[in-house]
């Protein structure tokens, strides 16, 4: 039973570019949440997707957007990249109707902006 799969594992982008990160949730999970973890910091909530809609959003600018597909997989898009967007981006999947925070985290995508 595969857990949460994120791709790519690493990538390097230039300031001003756009990037798309991908996440496949754990089998049986229907909700995907994205977190940004800057170096030396704890993860910060970006947004959560369920039923292909953004349900909650953290304190991130509109440059950060997402999408959820009918198969529950998700993409995180970041436009106009800044050096400060360099971070580990974590995807977490869960089952919406279990109110127990049953998150499973992926290993993350390390984004470096130069």
């Amino acid at each position, binding site marked *: 039973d595969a857990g949460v799969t994120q791709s790519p594992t690493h990538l390097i982008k230039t300031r001003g570019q756009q990037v798309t990160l991908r996440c496949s949730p754990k089998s049986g999970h229907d909700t995907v949440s994205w977190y940004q973890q800057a170096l030396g910091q704890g993860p910060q909530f970006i947004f*959560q997707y369920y039923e292909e809609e953004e349900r909650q959003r953290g304190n991130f600018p509109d440059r950060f957007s997402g999408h959820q597909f009918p198969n529950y997989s998700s993409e995180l898009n970041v436009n106009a990249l800044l050096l400060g967007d360099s971070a580990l981006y974590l995807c977490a999947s869960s089952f*919406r109707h279990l109110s127990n925070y049953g998150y499973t985290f992926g290993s993350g995508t390390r984004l470096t902006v130069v």
Partner: protein
Amino acid sequence: AQSVTQPDIHITVSEGASLELRCNYSYGATPYLFWYVQSPGQGLQLLLKYFSGDTLVQGIKGFEAEFKRSQSSFNLRKPSVHWSDAAEYFCAVGARDGVGASKLTFGTGTRLQVTL
């Protein structure tokens, strides 16, 4: 808004010694509380969680944590540390908003170093 404070950025303990990592939270009611561990370059693994009931909760890898409402704390403990416990530890709080699997607010983490 909820918040989490982990006062210790870095802790070093000898293998076999006991461990306590501190966590204080701010929330209007009793939140859901979690401890996660992260090895270098890896995602987060759940060690334990508190929702209600017994304030002493047991987790994986021999870890336990105690919820103290009066102190707004949820400290993580282990009686005897192993070298493989060296990692980053995060305390997190989740709101009891009645919605399933909502957002977590994390502390800044405590890096644990274990000396042999």
